[in-house]
């Protein structure tokens, strides 16, 4: 039984005003037809580049914006069915850690105020109980109780992220949404925070939705990974399977593009990368509704890719993939891409 179930979710932002007062710019389709499930205590990664829609999907789950279509269920709650106000219980159950350690903490509030806020609002804690829990949270993330009296600007980036994590864990949430939590940190700090997050997950049993663009980071923290490209989820599956033997061409391109510090490995990757990406541009413009958004860059593109978005099918590894290579042409049927013969494009 899954903790979080996202079904057929779409988020469309209205376009802004044009030059003439009655003009409207076209709508922005940030997320289309997304399906995602997270089990209790599971750690799922959501990977994509800029414009993929991963942040938007995270914000929809957090009820920071309202989806245009589709449903989100958390346990017994139909999240999309909430009216204007979000129930306390939901806020208690779902918390967030953002990317930007500078902007995510209110500069005018002390650390104590920041960490105590969710406790006050959602659990009604006051006085000694509040103080105890606040100090406990500080310890949990490797900071000291006396840090509570300081202001955010007095801390380094890594420490601020710890404060953000402390705040997120205050109400012992069932699901923690982490939106690029380590992207803005230095390498040495990054590994410290990643280790912290892994440890906390073991200790608190919270489920994670780990949103990031760095597949290597996600692989360390997550058991399952979903890959997004330009508003669509194109592949999901166990972390190891996705990272070692992907079923979708975009995932393969992503993996090949990640630079590896081993020069020998990198040389090999460079030549693979050159073969896997056509054209020079990234994902630009509006994502198509009835086509695969990766068609313009895909080395295996077929005619059908321009006219319809593929129906997802199950992969051999236990996930899903949405790619015409599996349902038409070579008919991979859920097997990894590596089974394609490079010369003939057949399975």
């Amino acid at each position: 039984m899954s903790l979080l179930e996202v079904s057929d979710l779409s988020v469309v932002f209205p376009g802004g005003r044009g030059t003439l007062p009655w003009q409207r710019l076209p709508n922005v389709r940030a997320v289309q037809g997304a399906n995602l499930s997270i089990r209790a205590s599971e750690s799922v990664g959501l990977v994509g580049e800029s414009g993929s829609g991963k942040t938007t999907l995270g914000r929809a789950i957090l009820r920071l914006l309202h989806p245009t279509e589709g449903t989100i269920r958390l346990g017994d709650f139909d999240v999309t069915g909430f009216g204007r106000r979000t129930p306390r219980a939901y806020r208690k159950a779902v918390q967030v850690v953002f990317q930007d350690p500078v902007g995510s903490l209110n500069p005018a509030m002390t650390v104590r105020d920041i960490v105590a806020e969710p406790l006050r609002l959602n659990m009604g804690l006051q006085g000694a109980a509040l103080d105890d829990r606040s100090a406990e949270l500080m310890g949990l993330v490797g900071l000291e109780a006396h840090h509570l009296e300081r202001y955010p600007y007095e801390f380094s980036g890594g420490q601020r992220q710890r404060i953000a994590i402390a705040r997120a864990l205050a109400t012992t949430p069932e699901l923690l949404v982490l939106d690029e939590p380590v992207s803005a940190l230095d390498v040495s700090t990054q590994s410290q925070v990643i280790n912290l997050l892994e440890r906390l997950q073991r200790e608190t049993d919270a489920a994670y939705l780990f949103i990031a663009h760095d597949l290597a980071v996600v692989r360390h923290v997550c058991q399952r990974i979903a890959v997004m490209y330009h508003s669509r989820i194109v592949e999901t599956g166990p972390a190891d399977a996705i990272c070692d033997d992907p079923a979708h061409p975009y995932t393969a391109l992503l993996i090949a593009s990640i630079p590896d510090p081993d020069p020998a490995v990198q040389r090999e990757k460079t030549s693979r990368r050159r073969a896997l990406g056509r054209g020079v541009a990234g994902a630009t413009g509006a994502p198509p509704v009835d086509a695969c958004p990766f068609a313009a860059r895909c080395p295996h593109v077929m005619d059908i890719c321009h006219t319809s978005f593929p129906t997802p099918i199950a992969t051999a590894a236990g996930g899903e993939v949405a790619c015409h290579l599996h349902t038409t042409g070579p008919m991979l049927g859920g097997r990894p891409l590596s089974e394609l013969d490079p010369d003939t494009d057949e399975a």
Partner: protein
Amino acid sequence: MLRLLVGRLTAAVPLMFAVATLVFFLAQANSSDPAGSILGLDATEDAIDAKRAELGIDQPLLSQYGDWLVDAVQGDLGTNWFTGEEITTELSDRIPVTLGLAFGGLLLAVVIGCSLGVLAALKAGRWQDRVITVIASLGIAMPSFWIALLLAYYFAIELRWLPAVWPPGGPDGIGEWVEALVLPSVALGVAASAAIARQTRSAMIGVLQRDYVRTALAKGLPVRRVVGRHAIRNAAIPVVTLIGFQVAALLGGSLFVELIFNIPGLGSYGVDAIFRGNVPALLGFVMVIAFVVVLVNIALDLSYAWLNPKVRVRG
């Protein structure tokens, strides 16, 4: 660009409409009876009633409003209650005078303000900057009418270099126009130039810290070129916004300056209208001023588009 112009003009129409409505009902809120003050204290009841009918103020308020609006759209701003003249005619005589004054002040303000602002930014932290900043801080604090008084006194009355009063019948030829407008324009322009200097300095400093300035230097371009070609155009944008506000402020300030120098412009017309409770004249005055401000702002919006290519492409 053309689309931008059409767009702005279309948006301006409801704005003018809103201004008209607001001011009409505001002006009517005063309960005093104009008919009585026009005719004088010894007017009879009948005479007052007749006058009221003549002026049209015995009609319900909304129909007065409707009538006025219909006429105004066609360019007829009604009749001056006190002089009996056509308001449109009266105003059109005065418009060039005030515009000349305001334009003179603006020219002065922009030229002096921008130059000083750029200089201060280039020498930020050094003595030139400090001096300019202090002068600018003082300049924005000066009431324009005080400066006008002082200038009028010293240059016109004491030294007699320039005329203290408006030439009767209007100035004749460019020379007389300039002579007549110099002192009032200076009085008007001082505060504006100080404000523009401050904004230019701050915008320029902001731009000089930008990466593309660093890139331009990295391309080996000389400082003067970097400032002139790269920095100024981008720094101009906030300054243009400020100039928009300053135009409105200058038109407001012209009220005082016109009074002091006895200039027959829009300002003195408006003040007179308020004192006498001359509602249609007041309305006409406000509408003309609002119209000028709106036009100027549209012109500035268009210059934005020229300065900032991102604006052009949208929509």
